[in-house]
């Protein structure tokens, strides 16, 4: 039999290029694989056990060998055995899985934050330094990265198989996931939640770089403005600074250092100010009125894009004093500037 050498070579190359197991490129991956192999071995043992029982009984008690069946009612002991052992195994799977789940979805405090915006059908990544990427994400190795993600339209899902992480990207709400890449290289990024026509084109490349390379990359690809700087511009152009000026008589509360603090709201509840809270407070201000202030802030629902919101959130995160806010305000007022670009009436 002669197989054409060309075909043979093609087959060999094809098989070599194909994958059977994903590479382990994050700190979480070995943990995930350990659980995977544990579950896999339970499955194999279970299937082998059932197959052995079927085969052995089929051979030993086939009609030719065992012409008359012996009627057995059952055995409580045996049944208890195969109730309790699987139950025990499943409970181990539960505890193990739960530990891993909490690990993947609770980012460490020292992690670096990158924002992800999903929309039909592309991923936008926004680094704090202002680097924007489409369908790509550059990350340093050896550094925990937290992704704060939101969707502009439908459900998407951000999945990096080589890092063993995945998280739904939800419209109207931030979701987070974190990872720490270990091996430099390029990895797949998939949208795994069906999101319409070009769902399968909503893919990208994750590039893990050594810290030095990453530094080089950030310098090369900077847009000149950090997210916080963009946010500052937006803050001024939307006229936010008119009320949130930090003056004693200001109509809105001072926002310097508000991130991470605990606020008391007019409805008596206490909230921790985080990304989600800031975003919500901009979009639905009257449900988040700080105690002592009147609900006069208009809603910005539909007027600021998710990117804009991210800029504002990032700006507020880094806002430690009101000095620049007041400076900008004075400049604007003295120039009697035209109404803000977005046309939002000041309250």
């Amino acid at each position: 039999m002669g197989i054409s050498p060309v075909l043979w070579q093609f087959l060999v190359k094809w098989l070599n290029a194909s994958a059977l197991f994903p590479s382990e490129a994050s700190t979480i991956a070995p943990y995930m694989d350990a659980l995977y192999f544990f579950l896999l071995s339970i499955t194999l043992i279970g299937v082998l056990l059932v197959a052995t029982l079927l085969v052995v009984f089929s051979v030993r008690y086939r009609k030719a060998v065992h012409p008359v069946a012996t009627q057995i009612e059952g055995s409580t002991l045996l049944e208890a055995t195969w109730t309790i052992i699987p139950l025990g195994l499943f409970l181990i799977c539960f505890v193990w899985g739960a530990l891993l789940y909490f690990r993947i979805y609770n980012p460490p405090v020292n992690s670096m934050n990158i924002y992800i915006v999903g929309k039909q059908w592309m991923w936008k990544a926004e680094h704090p330094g202002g680097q924007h990427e489409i369908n790509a994400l550059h990350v340093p190795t050896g550094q925990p990265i937290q992704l704060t993600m939101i969707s502009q339209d439908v459900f998407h899902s951000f999945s990096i198989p080589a890092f063993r992480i995945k998280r739904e990207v939800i419209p109207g709400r931030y979701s987070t996931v974190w990872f720490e890449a270990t091996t430099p290289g390029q990895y797949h990024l998939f949208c795994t939640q069906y999101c319409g026509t070009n769902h399968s084109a909503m893919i990208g490349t994750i590039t893990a770089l050594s810290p030095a390379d990453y530094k080089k990359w950030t310098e090369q690809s900077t847009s000149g403005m950090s997210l916080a700087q963009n946010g500052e511009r937006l803050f001024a152009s939307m006229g936010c600074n008119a009320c949130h000026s930090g003056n004693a008589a200001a109509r809105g509360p001072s926002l310097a250092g508000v991130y991470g603090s605990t606020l008391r709201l007019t409805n008596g509840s206490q909230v921790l100010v985080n990304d989600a809270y800031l975003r919500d407070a901009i979009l639905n201000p009257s449900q988040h009125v700080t105690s002592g202030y009147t609900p006069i802030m208009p809603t910005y629902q539909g007027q600021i894009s998710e990117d804009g919101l991210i800029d504002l959130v990032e700006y507020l995160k880094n806002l430690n004093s009101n000095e620049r806010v007041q400076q900008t305000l004075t400049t604007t007022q003295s120039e009697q500037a035209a109404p803000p670009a977005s046309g939002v009436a000041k309250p």
Partner: protein
Amino acid sequence: MDSAIANPQADHDAAEHEHEHVFVPQHRHHFATEEQQREAGSFGMWLFLLTEIMFFGGLFFAYLLYRNWYYDAFVAASNQLSIPLGASNTAILITSGFFMALAVWAAEVRKKALLVVFLIFTTLFGLAFLGIKYVEYHEKWEKHHIPGASFDASEFINPSAYGLKENPLPPDVAQKTQMFFFLYFAMTGMHALHMIIGIGLLVWLLARAQRGDFTQGYVAPIENFGLYWHFVDIVWLYLFPLLYLINRHPLAH
């Protein structure tokens, strides 16, 4: 579920049966007795009502969730509904249910004229309920409170312009009144749809009752329809406080 039974007489004579069937025209061949058929019928009806509970259950949950999320909007929107209309509708529906119960009784004691009269009253009160519902819906239509493209929340943002003494709502909260109105229309609309189907069935039952179908000992259709009609009542018994009443005295912040 069952007490163990004595082993029934295994060897019995096939010929023994025929005379034991009490034969009535509505008795279907696959039931051993009419009693068995009747109980099967009412059990089947109850199972159907279980599906109805779960059907409304989804809406009730949505109401519970969004009332907690958008409390202020729900309070403001709910206070737009008229308690007198809602309360009289409740009374009307209870009356309709009362006549339905009486109709079941009339069928049981085989009084044809009474049965027909009670069914007519049941229908009339059902129609009265729908009439009042129409008045309420119409008012919402005129105020542009029907959710959708034409929805207008300005009455909640600026109540004084409409001559109302309510506290004004910030625009973002006011928009959420749409959620209340949607749930209001979905729940009362689904309820009204059940009423309309019920009235259709009532007309059919009336025609048959007039023919004397149900006053010869065969009361299952009347009985089962009664179960349906009372279930529709029960849904309203919950809708009335949830939509009209419980938001009258909002908790102060």
